[in-house]
């Protein structure tokens, strides 16, 4: 199983939509795909859309937390959008929802990031 990472730029925000199963096997490819684009941004601003993620475990949490740390260290911002119900449960167990901003829709997350950067 693999995850498809689709990216686009909306203003100065990188919007990355994941589709598929995010586990230990696919985590490294997702990490590299996101970092390749984030490393070229200063400061990095990312909206990670999880609507298409059909399965995720703690390896996926590691990818998200890792990007959050890297982006924060470089003075950037990150938002999560469209979290499926089964992944919400992982966010609650891990406490991730207390650390990160989670939005119901991608557009809402992009608008929030643009407002923060103005």
């Amino acid at each position, binding site marked *: 199983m693999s995850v498809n990472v689709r990216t686009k730029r909306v203003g100065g925000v990188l919007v990355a939509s994941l589709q598929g199963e995010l*586990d*230990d096997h696919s985590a490294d490819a997702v990490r590299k795909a996101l970092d390749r684009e984030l490393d070229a941004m200063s400061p990095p601003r990312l909206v990670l859309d999880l609507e298409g993620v059909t*399965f995720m475990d*703690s390896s996926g949490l590691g990818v998200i937390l890792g990007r959050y740390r890297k982006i924060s260290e470089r003075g950037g911002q990150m938002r999560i959008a469209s979290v499926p119900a*089964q992944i919400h449960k*992982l966010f609650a167990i891990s406490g991730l929802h207390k650390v990160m901003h989670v939005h119901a829709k991608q557009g809402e997350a992009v608008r929030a990031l643009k407002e923060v950067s103005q």
Partner: protein
Amino acid sequence: MTPTNEMQIRFTAVSGNESFARVAVAAFVAQMNPTMDELTEVKTIVSEAVTNAIIHGYPDGFGEVTLQCKIVGDTMELVVSDSGVGIADMNAVRQPLYTSRPDLERSGMGFTIMESFADEFDVVSSVGHGTHLKFRKRIGEASMPLSAARES
């Protein structure tokens, strides 16, 4: 209680087999008429346990994982075993956010998630000999089974 049904799979400890293990157990417990939530929790338990065996049991990358699953009444019993290095500090691995492999950008939430999704979770480990992660989970506690959800 006598097991009503059981299966066992042994596979190479490579990450490409994580999804195979999830799907195999999910297919086996489907006969218990689980809800979507229960099936997702079972798949997550399997994924965490198998990933743990692959990454932490065999840090050198060579070994096998054995997965045993039994259906006993309304309960699924699952054992995920490796013959790897074992766990030296059992208290540490049960702490949320602990990881022995920060180099791999692990979240350290694997044990916490397995504890949350299983009704019972035991770890039997011997340094130099391997680890057995044992789970019990009742299936069918919620109101809408998967078959009904598909029809609605």
